[in-house]
């Protein structure tokens, strides 16, 4: 099993060069059964990463390009009257898939956004009075451009909270970039990729995440992190209990990915920035997103008990 995961990471690394930690975080998020938000400027490989994960995990994969005129029906599907049968027939939308890539989610109107986010939370959609279950497993990898770019509808805090993690890829380092430029087109490489694990294996792994041991000392540490964020004046408001659960879940998945069945403080530290940066706001009114800095401040300020 570990082997499969190792190979997964290794394979991904051949396409997305020099981004091992981000790839690990993305896989962690999927193991923890969470949805992933990738925020970055266009062209650094967000879509490629999503594509790659779908391919390597052997999942059924669909993509929606979010635009400002996207309607909820474009996501969920629509019922069409069938003259021959004399009744309405539901045409499922792209959401009925195992891995959905919602590209540039913040270009759509809030109405379209909320249709997707509702489905993410409940793992089912309701159309024309009929509730339909979404397939198992069901992941959403959403990408978005940084909020200050033109033509974006920033996601409200409550909806950002639905994403277990927010990561950003960033530009590759010089060596990786050179290798990228010298190598073949990543799209072509992607098509040649073979799945490393089956969906059944993936679900088994997800179950294993639940079994990773969390010691009292580690719970203390998590709780101290949460309470510090609530009492320190640098934070506008503290982390919610939901954020705390997300943190622990990610830490467990991260430990499993590392081949361990117990969570260490290092695991919490590794996943904390990606888990909480989109949930934290500075008490000072700054235009810049301070989430990342706050997360690191939080880590440096709270001693490990």
């Amino acid at each position, binding site marked *: 099993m570990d082997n499969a995961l190792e190979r997964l990471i290794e394979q991904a690394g051949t396409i997305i060069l020099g981004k091992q930690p981000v790839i690990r975080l993305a896989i962690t998020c999927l193991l923890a059964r969470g949805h992933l938000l990738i925020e970055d400027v266009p062209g650094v490989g967000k879509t490629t990463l999503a594509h790659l994960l779908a391919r390597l995990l052997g999942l059924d994969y669909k993509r929606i390009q979010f635009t400002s005129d996207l309607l909820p029906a474009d996501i969920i599907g629509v019922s069409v009257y069938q003259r021959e049968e004399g009744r309405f027939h539901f045409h499922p939308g792209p959401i009925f898939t195992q891995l959905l890539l919602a590209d540039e989610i913040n270009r759509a109107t809030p109405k379209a956004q909320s249709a997707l986010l509702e489905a993410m939370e409940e793992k089912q959609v309701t159309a024309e009075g009929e509730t339909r279950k979404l397939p198992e497993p069901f992941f959403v990898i959403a990408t978005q451009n940084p909020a200050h770019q033109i033509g974006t509808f920033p996601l409200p805090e409550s909806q950002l909270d639905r994403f277990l993690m927010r990561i950003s890829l960033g530009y590759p380092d010089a060596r990786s970039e050179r290798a990228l430029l010298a190598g073949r087109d990543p799209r072509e490489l992607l098509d040649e990729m073979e799945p490393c694990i089956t969906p059944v294996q993936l679900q088994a792994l997800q179950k294993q995440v639940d079994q990773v041991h969390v010691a009292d000392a*580690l719970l203390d540490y998590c709780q101290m992190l949460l309470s510090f964020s609530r009492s320190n004046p*640098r934070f506008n408001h503290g982390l919610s209990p939901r954020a705390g659960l997300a943190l622990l879940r990610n830490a467990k998945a991260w430990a499993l990915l590392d081949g361990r069945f117990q969570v260490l403080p290092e695991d919490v530290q590794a996943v904390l920035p990606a888990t909480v940066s989109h949930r934290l706001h500075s008490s000072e009114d700054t235009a810049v997103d301070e989430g990342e800095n706050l997360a690191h401040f939080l880590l440096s300020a709270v001693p490990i008990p």
Partner: protein
Amino acid sequence: MIGGLQLHLSRRELNALAIVLFLAVAPHFFNLSIWIGLFFAATVALRLVLNRQKNPFPGRWLVFLLMLIGLVNLFIQYPIPLFRSAAVALLVSMLGLKLLEVRRRRDLYVAVFLGYFTLITQFLYRQDMLLAGYALLVVLALTAILVETSRHSPSRSLLSPLWQSFSLLGQAIPVMIILFLFFPRLSGPLWNLGLGEQSGVTGLSDKIRPGSISQLSQSKEVAFRAHFQDPIPPPQQRYWRGPVFWDSDGVEWDLGAELQPRALSLSIGEQQINYSVILEPTNQKWLFALDLPDRLPPRTRVTPEFELVRDDPITQRISYQISSRPVYNTGEIADDEWIRGLALPDNITPRMQQLVADWKKQSSNTAGIVDQALAYFRQQPFYYTLLPPLLGQNPADQFLFESRRGFCEHYATSFTLLMRIAGIPARVVTGYQGGEVNPMGDYLIVRQSDAHAWTEVWLEGQGWVRVDPTAAVAPERIERTFDFDLTGDTIGTPIDFNLQESDFIKSIARQLRWGADALNTGWHRWVLGYTHDRQSQLMQLLGMGFLKGRYLAIGMVVFTTLVMLGIGIYLWRNGQEKIDPIKAAYLRFCRKLARRGIVRQPAEGPRDFALRVNQARPDLQQQTDQITRLYIALRYGRVDAPEKRQKLQRLVRGFRV
């Protein structure tokens, strides 16, 4: 917190600092040269003006220039940089300059601590309750500044830092009380740094000349306060004995050589008055007591003429317990007293001798002559006045026959001379007479205006007897306290004793004055009067009389150390209890590495730390990995086996860096 110290101060903080420091220095304006005060006030004003500017920090050159001005000012005002005032003036000037220089939080802390120190220097000048209360308020404000600037963001209301400062100071009260009670007192004055600086102490001196006491009488300053254990004696008996004068050159009276100690043939009555006196500094050696002093305070001796003389001059407020015998007979006169009690200056005029000769013709015994002399003062137009006319080279003659206006010293000295002419040994006694009873607190306030002079004559069979010629002229002087208003009086105006207490406001004012004096006296008695002696009394009472002086200091240090050690052990134990043995073992491992410079950060996980250790000390890799693996397994894993725990402890114990 280094970053915090470097933070620039806001205008609000700078304003608060300037105002509070001004308050801290303000009482010094009365102690120091006006120019020092003006310089400081100018720096505060400049600070406040600069705070309104875009850049509130003055340039280096301006500060340098101001420093030069400050130094020049200081050297002009205090050319000899030796004494208390020069040092305080330097402190105040530099504090003003510091205020201009303050930029960052660190500077503010320095300035605030200087403010605390400056506040303490106020007590070098005055130690009254008002100043102490004021100093406490300023301490509150200074602490509030510290509280406010230590905050992450400014508080909305000024009350919040003040309240926090108040509660901080409140918590310090027990410590303050313990230190007050047990901190070793120096037997000498702690703040008597004013070497060579005689503050203008008014009081009786070792010479009298016509006018010297009447000058003193214009001072409302308190000479001493007396608390009676027995009922307060009536005004007629309240003669507070001070220096006794024997020798006169016709103008001035002098103490003369001190009489040799001798055995006294004294007999005393049953009645005894016990009381304690709080004497203000006089820079003289005399203590004051009612006639005749019986039990002596320590470090004091009594002369044959019943003066109480202390070993050293009274330069600070002292308190002594004493008792007096109002009924007495000093018995036989000694030879030297006889000679000196009859000595006459050269300028005795024939008309003085004629006057005495007339009395002698009419009376056969000495007591009769005394009565005649008193009758003379009573019947002739003598006036009792605070503003006697100036007298020439023969004041006694001039006073007796020409001006006939004088104060107690005129009456006492000329009466004494007349007695000596008549062949009755006589001497002049100075001291205080009367005093005001403060009904609040029930004690007597004796002021400089109660200074008085009277005569003692020696009569066969009665010994030295007090005769007060002033009482013959102005009995009111003796019977009621002496309250006067000099405004508008011309020289020679008789004193009008007709002071009706009709004025309601005046009576309220007097009540207030009494109340304030009672409070202040309590302060003197219980706070300032808590001296070395009282402290050793308290220690005796607590059964720790062996803790004296140096031993008390050592005892205090030992006690404090023990308490701190106790608190430390308690806290350490409490902290330890929360840490389980696994964590303790790991922390020990970390401490061993820390001693070699590899310090684990508080937020550094065990695996990260092990990586770092291995990089720094590859030679320890095996041990480090083993310990870390065991620790992780025990603390974060499911493993909970005592033998593993013991193994970890063993490994850590054996770990050598």
